[in-house]
């Protein structure tokens, strides 16, 4: 398939803990095409976090292959993986993980700093990303001056600023109230509508219901992989600046 952004073939992941070997992934194969919106579900210990780390190039499989955007990344060195993360992956975390001391703008600029983009271009792109998530007027605020929803928007802007192949969200609404969660889900739906590939880990069915495809993990394997009719259709929001 030509438009597969993610192609994972038979990957396993073993952790050695003392005398015990934990098999977090026991042979997972998965393909995600461009502009898919996938929810990754499963109980704790099912291996969904391990798979998430694998997809995010934070970890490499013990066995198996992982092709990301046409590049085999399962055998890369730490620094090469860092480069891939910088260019291809946009992370959104449950706890936002913004740098407390830095302004929203500086937080969003960070991936560009590591991508070697300097000066005016960096600032312009960060401003654009913040505007895209509706925070064009909060750029000079520090995280502690922003609400939870606004913080997560900053984090999403940071994830988008390098125009990644996939947006990888790990329980993005886990720390938000339900109203704010819906806002963030609407934003994801919008980004998806604009062509962004989204992979989201969640254990909340009503959050997973926003995705077009739901993959459920159990005991280190994929239990089910089904299409889903998104519960909420993205409401048209003002076109990005």
């Amino acid at each position: 398939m030509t438009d597969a952004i993610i192609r994972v073939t038979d990957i396993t992941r073993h952790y050695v803990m003392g005398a015990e070997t934990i098999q977090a992934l026991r042979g997972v194969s998965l393909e995600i095409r461009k502009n898919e919106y996938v929810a990754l579900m499963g109980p704790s210990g099912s291996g969904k976090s391990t798979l998430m780390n694998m997809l995010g190039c934070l970890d490499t499989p013990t066995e198996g292959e992982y092709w990301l955007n046409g590049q085999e990344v399962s055998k890369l060195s730490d620094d090469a993986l860092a480069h891939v993360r910088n260019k291809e992956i946009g992370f959104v975390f449950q706890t936002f993980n913004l740098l407390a001391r830095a302004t929203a703008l500086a937080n969003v600029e960070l991936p560009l700093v590591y991508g070697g983009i300097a000066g005016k271009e960096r600032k312009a792109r960060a401003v654009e990303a913040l505007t895209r998530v509706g925070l064009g007027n909060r750029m000079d605020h520090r995280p502690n001056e922003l609400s939870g929803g606004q913080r997560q928007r900053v984090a999403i802007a940071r994830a988008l600023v390098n125009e990644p192949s996939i947006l990888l969200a790990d329980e993005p609404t886990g720390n938000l109230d339900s109203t704010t969660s819906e806002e963030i889900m609407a934003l994801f739906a919008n980004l998806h509508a604009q062509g962004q590939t989204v992979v989201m880990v969640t254990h909340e069915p009503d959050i997973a219901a926003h995705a077009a495809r739901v993959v459920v993990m159990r005991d280190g394997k994929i239990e089910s992989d089904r299409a889903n009719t998104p519960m909420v259709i993205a409401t048209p929001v003002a076109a990005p600046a």
Partner: protein
Amino acid sequence: MPTFEAVRMAFATIWSQKLKSFFSLIGVLIGVTFLIAVVSIVQGMNVYMEEKFANTLVGLNTFQLRQRPGIQTGNVSREVSRAWRRRPRLSYADADYVLDRLSVPVTTARISNERLALAYGGKQAKDINLNATESAFFRIKKYNFSAGRPFTAQEVRSGVPVAVIGDLVAEKLFVGADPLGKQVVIGGLPYRVIGVVEKQGTLFGIPLDKFAVVPWTSPAQRLVNPINILDELSIQTADEPSMRAAMAEVEGIMRVRRQLKPSQASNFTLQTADGALDSWGKISAILFTALPGLVAISLVVGGIVIMNIMLMAVSERTREIGVRKALGAKRRDILAQFVVESTTLSVLGAALGVGFGILLAFVIKAVTPLPAAVAPWSIAVGVLLGVLVGVTAGVYPASQASKLDPITALRSE
């Protein structure tokens, strides 16, 4: 990531926790402050000793033939001091004998001195150093006159009672009035003031302007020394080598005159500024030997403090490191971030230390008689040491940080 970004990031971090940063760089600050201040004072002393002290007390390229040393530095035991006093005194005949036989061209002045009081009107200036000498004295001392003139060779030949006085004496006796032409009383003898020497300032807080100069042939001669006896023959040459040559000649001539056997020590003293400079040289050598040790101790302590602060920072900011790695920071980016941060911290400490050191040097200069001159090289060394300490202290914590696994780091609280 460019270094510039790392430095900017480091400043942001340091600035966001000012007090903590300040305490962590205090060790380096103290070390460098100490370095700058001590070097400044030693340098200042060097300049002072060489230019002022030596030239004021003895004169440039000048040595003195004396019964015993006039400038005593360091400890002199009672026995040595007593032996010096038992030496034969220097006579005018000795001086003539030496000068007749000396081949090196020289300027000489026969000097006798005594501490006594000068009086004018109802006022008295006590403890004035009276020099009974000849006119070349002024050339050797390189005195400039604020008023009047030195006495002439003619006046010396005829023993006219004229006096040149120091600035402090003029001030004390005449309080702003013109001293020229006035009659002062020196040890009961009337003298006419013909010149006032420009202010010489102080040496280690001792005023150099409490003196008067009269022709050695004038009536006051009997107040200073027994007849035919003088305190020193001051001999000035054109330059350093000729001074050495003249000293060797004078020593030989005097030994012949005193009929000393080769086994006997000289019973006279040839005094140069070197003696005083030598003992200062010893003191400054000790200071310069002790200085690196003292500075090193503060810098090592400062370095350890910074290293600890950085290790703490790494564990406090583990999650931040995880986030940065997730966003694409490579090992060397994280390494650079922490090394640059500790270096910035340390250099900041060193820079503050340079500032405080210069300030301290000037304060010492202002409130004590000690001179101070900031040595540019010490500033360079201070900043360089700051860089060195910062890099050294930062490498270990930074490498710990760079080795963190992003997943573990992201999970940390």
